[in-house]
């Protein structure tokens, strides 16, 4: 009687060789391969990654091709349309717009990444710690969160960054300060159920200190949410920063960001529209590509999502 080799109990019939799973017969996908496959199946998301990488490369290596510095003035070319000499044209003072867009993109990207990182870390630690420790820590954290929710944050943002004199580090710091708490509240609600799970109880009864439970067990479990929050945070930070700079409350000359460039372009939009086209295109590509990436990540990381098809 021939038995199916996979049906043999390796403990009961130790003499026979243990069943070997043929490689390639039924491959187990690793976690990352699975995520990668689900992500690449989402074609807009892949497009978003491509656009975003191109933008980053442009911000990093764009200055190598620039013929002018962004503060350098070319008095022979005032308000010139795009030409071989000035690829994106010049403004009314003779600044080369190509150099300004590259610098502005760098600035906007830097602020966005710093803000998104800070916001994600701060919200993750405070949200999970508040849920895990409970008691007084939780009450204090929630009080601060609820207070900030009612506070006129955009006003604070405008006043504080206005008085900072346009230093991008201050703007980034203030942006972190006014944007962490919404995410922290979501994470707190999620962690409430997480802290009642068996592995957390087990860790606690094994004597693992509280902070280590937070960092080793709670935060990794909301990892996919944090990744998505990070990408959406980049979009939000870019929008907030460019909005502020557009109004003149954010990054100030001689430093430029995409927002302040659009602000300058807006004042002369009918006479020299290229002043608006190029920074606006860079900004839109940046936000849209990041949003597409976030959407793809959500489908790839969420086990209940069916948008990416099977597996």
């Amino acid at each position, binding site marked *: 009687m021939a038995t199916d080799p996979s049906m043999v109990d390796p403990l009961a019939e130790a003499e026979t060789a243990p069943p070997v799973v043929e490689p390639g017969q039924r491959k187990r996908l690793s976690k990352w391969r699975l995520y990668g496959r689900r992500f690449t199946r989402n074609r807009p998301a892949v497009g978003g990654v491509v656009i975003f990488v191109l933008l980053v490369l442009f911000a990093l290596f764009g200055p190598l091709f620039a013929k002018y510095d962004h503060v350098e003035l070319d008095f022979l070319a005032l308000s010139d349309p795009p030409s071989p000499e000035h690829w994106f044209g010049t403004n009314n003072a003779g600044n080369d717009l190509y150099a300004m867009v590259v610098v502005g993109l760098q600035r906007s990207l830097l602020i966005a990444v710093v803000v998104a990182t800070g916001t994600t870390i701060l919200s993750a630690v405070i949200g999970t710690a508040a849920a895990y420790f409970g008691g007084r820590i939780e009450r204090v954290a929630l009080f601060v969160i609820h207070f900030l929710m009612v506070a006129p944050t955009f*006003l604070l943002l405008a006043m504080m960054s*206005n008085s900072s004199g346009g230093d991008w580090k201050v703007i980034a710091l203030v942006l972190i300060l006014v944007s962490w708490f919404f995410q922290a509240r979501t994470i707190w609600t999620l962690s409430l159920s997480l802290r009642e799970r068996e592995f957390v109880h087990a860790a606690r009864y094994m004597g693992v200190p509280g902070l280590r439970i937070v960092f080793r067990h709670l935060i990794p479990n909301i990892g996919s949410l944090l990744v998505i929050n990070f990408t959406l945070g980049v979009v939000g930070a870019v929008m907030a920063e*460019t*909005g502020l700079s557009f109004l003149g409350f954010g990054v100030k000359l001689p430093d430029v960001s995409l927002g302040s460039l*659009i602000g300058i372009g807006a004042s002369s939009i*009918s006479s020299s529209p290229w002043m608006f086209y190029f920074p606006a295109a860079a900004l*839109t590509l940046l*936000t849209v590509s*990041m949003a597409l990436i976030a959407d793809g990540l959500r489908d790839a990381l969420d086990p209940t999502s069916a948008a990416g098809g099977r597996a």
Partner: protein
Amino acid sequence: MVVAVTNLTYFLAWAYLDPRSNYVGRRPPLSEQQIVNLLEPRNLDDGTPLLVRWWNWFSGVLFRWDWGVSPTGQSVNDQVAYRMWISAELMLGATILLTLIGIALGVYSASRQYRVGDRVAQGTSIITMNIPIVVAALGLVLLAIAFNGAVGTTVFYVTGASSPGVSGFFPTLVDTIQHLTLPTLALVIVGYAQYHFLQRSLLLDNIKSDYVRMARAKGLTKQQAIRKHALRTSLIPVTTQVAFSIPGIFTGAVLTESIFAWKGMGQYFIETISKNDINGVVAVAAFGAVMTAIGAILADIAVVVLDPRVRVS
């Protein structure tokens, strides 16, 4: 909470804004005494102790509902009362339109999940939702200028809420529409997608539920089942969201108003900060906080009215 926030804003505003700087460096230069004489009656002189200034302001609000004056002497009450309606004129139409479009698209794409229509609608919405409002608004301005140039007359006005010297009902109506179209379009383009995604995911949750399958089993067509059973339940959270956004009609849109030069609340917000108008800043913050609170109350009321499962004792 609102009162506490407002008072805190008052102190914060004093920490960051300096009305005195409006008068320093003027030509011809004003003497110290002249500046004090200008600021003192407006309760904006930083020579008087902060607590005294605060009490003057707070008692004025408390007992006379007087929110103070700007550094140039305009009443903040008048400004807010006037600008509120300008913002409302802009935001009312936009809010209605973007809600309706968003919900309609959400229903459409939920009932055709993962088919071409749904994919296209979702892709478009992701893109439009993430176009910065500044870019959308200025892009529309460029298009409108090109259009006006092509037609030969000014069809769309790109600045202001109305032209001077227009009277009569129909000329005023036409004039208003000419000014309203562009900012409304900009707001709708970037705003509708949130309702699209919300409505779509909520409706999908309901379409998969047992009572909708039951309705289908009774012999209703898919359209009927969605309209009569799934849509009704899924509209409740959407309505809450809409109710929450209604007060936003009066607080206005900062960027849109400043691009299209509408003198509404959003533009007032920028103006007060850049002109060191402390009383104005605080009034804007308080107005915003009250409107948020009203929004929360409206949302609660909407749930109670619409959802029979919620009972208020």
